């Protein structure tokens, strides 16, 4: 494997909730242009770790670096402008706005005419084009004028993905993008994520539950357990790692299931 540049780095990242260390001294390097998965049992601190990366939470101690600059303390609305987009585990969209409007708002954020009071948004050509493109890409074209709340759960997940694709960030943080999706829809979404990542040489950081998915697509995997990094490596490394077998899978699992 070629040596790649580090795009995101955490140093001794720690987050306490009361007395509970949700993320405990995590130092991690993520290389540009890779699909990096973070796995671990429920409650291992994956989502908290994600919230620290995306700036939704402030760490108790430790730092996050993006391309060498310190992200800690940066306001959350700056993140996307720096090139970091994230999706949420629990679908987080504008439920009463249309699918089109949801995506459009996401791509509008990158425009520089947000303060033109008298401009009709329908006339912002570049933004409209981008919106149409993204809607097409996530496969929601036929539903684009429906309020987001009436979409099925799977389609809402797609919309969520579309909302972070729209501003075209360099780093995508995806928190369980397949959560709650019907089985037959999962490969489709994963293929989409892979395609986005490869075609644009983007960095994708993925939190997933579904081991099969993770094993087949990731360039690198970090296993978290009780707030700590338990192991890190390629799919093969992880599959062979005895510690992962016992701790994450609790000696109960048979990975070859």
């Amino acid at each position: 494997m070629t040596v790649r540049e580090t795009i995101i780095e955490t140093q001794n990242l720690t987050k306490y909730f009361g007395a509970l260390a949700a993320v405990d001294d995590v130092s991690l390097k993520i290389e540009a242009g890779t699909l990096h998965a973070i796995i671990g049992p429920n409650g291992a601190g994956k989502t908290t770790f994600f919230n620290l990366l995306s700036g939704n939470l402030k760490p108790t101690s430790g730092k996050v670096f993006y391309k060498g600059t310190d992200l800690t303390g940066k306001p959350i609305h700056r993140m996307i402008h720096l090139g970091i987009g994230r999706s949420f585990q629990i679908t987080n969209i504008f439920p009463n706005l249309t699918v089109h409007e949801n995506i459009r708002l996401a791509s509008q954020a990158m425009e520089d005419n947000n303060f033109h009071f008298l401009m009709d948004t329908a006339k912002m050509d570049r933004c409209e084009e981008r919106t149409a493109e993204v809607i097409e890409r996530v496969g929601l074209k036929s539903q684009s004028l429906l309020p987001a709340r009436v979409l099925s759960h799977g389609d809402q997940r797609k919309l969520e993905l579309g909302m972070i694709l729209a501003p075209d960030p360099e780093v995508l943080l995806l928190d369980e993008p397949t959560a709650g999706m019907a089985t037959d829809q999962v490969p489709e979404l994963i293929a989409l994520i892979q395609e986005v990542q490869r075609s644009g040489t983007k960095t994708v950081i993925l939190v997933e539950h579904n081991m099969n998915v993770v094993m087949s697509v990731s360039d690198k995997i970090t296993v978290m357990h009780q707030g700590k990094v338990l192991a890190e490596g390629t799919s093969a490394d992880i599959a062979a790692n005895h510690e992962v077998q016992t701790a994450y899978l609790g000696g109960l699992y048979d990975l070859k299931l």
Partner: protein
Amino acid sequence: MKNNSSFLTKNRGILIFFAVMLLAPFLIGLFEGSTPLMIWGNQGSLSKFIEGLGIEIFILALFALSFDLLFGITGLLSFGHAMFFAVAAYLTGIALKTLTMPFWGVVLLVLLAAIVQALLFSLVLPRVKGITFTLVSLGLASVFHIIVMSSDMINLTGADVGLQGVPVPAFISPVIERLRFYVIALTLLVVTYLFYRRFVASPTGRVCVAIRENEDRAKMLGYNTTIFKIVAMIISSLTASTAGMLHALYQPIISPAVADLAFTVTALLIVLIGGVGTLSGAIVGAFAFRLLDFSLRRFIGESASFITGAIYVIFVLFVPYGIVGTMRMRQLRTKQGWQQLLGMLKSKN
């Protein structure tokens, strides 16, 4: 989703409203037997009375419109909104009466004060959300109310009696040139409404709607939501101040009641009646509110306020989306039905 329909078709409703309202004094004049020329010369009595009622409604509608921008569009519930109106009204009165400033200077001063106030409220916006913001705005406005009511500045404000004897420039005097005043108020309302429509469709306005729907998500999308809220606050304050200035020019007495929480609640009520976040609901609601109030007072007398209150409670409980909101829902439902049907046909093929 290109929308190529022209300005005229898109704003048909408000333009018809504008035309009807312009003609209304003349048409009403015909009933009492005054010729249009007499109306033009401010001579009819019934029409003049109706003009007066119209002006009051337009002022209320402007005020409610500004409240809807803040509450219905941006999702900020301010209980200090009446302060924008009242400061403008008192400032106009004091500037004309005590300071004897020239009229256009007064206008400039009032608009400047509007921006300053909006910025004052905005001071707390980045940190204080939801109900705490409501309480803070209530606190700020209450202070102003208390100051207006206090006897320390009775020479300026007239304390609890109200500010009287404001010299209104002759060219817009509501007594001599009432028709002109009526047309100005109407035009201001229509222009503001058109501007608001445009604003809501603009990139800035869309972000305001996004803030109402899910502020955290809007932040995650990369918007500095505080700035957008401040923008909405400034526009709203400017509108409310315009309404306040008209009020000061039209009414013989500026009563401290316009600084009271009850006046903000009036705006909230109007918006609820018309339909929250619909903009046109503010105009419809203002008509419904003022006309109901007027007719009940006329036919029942003093105890009307109880009945009006009861009617509002019942209305608000049973028509939760307001007049305009309910109408739009109907339209949308039909539209959605069609779309579903079309979708089904497509998928079958």
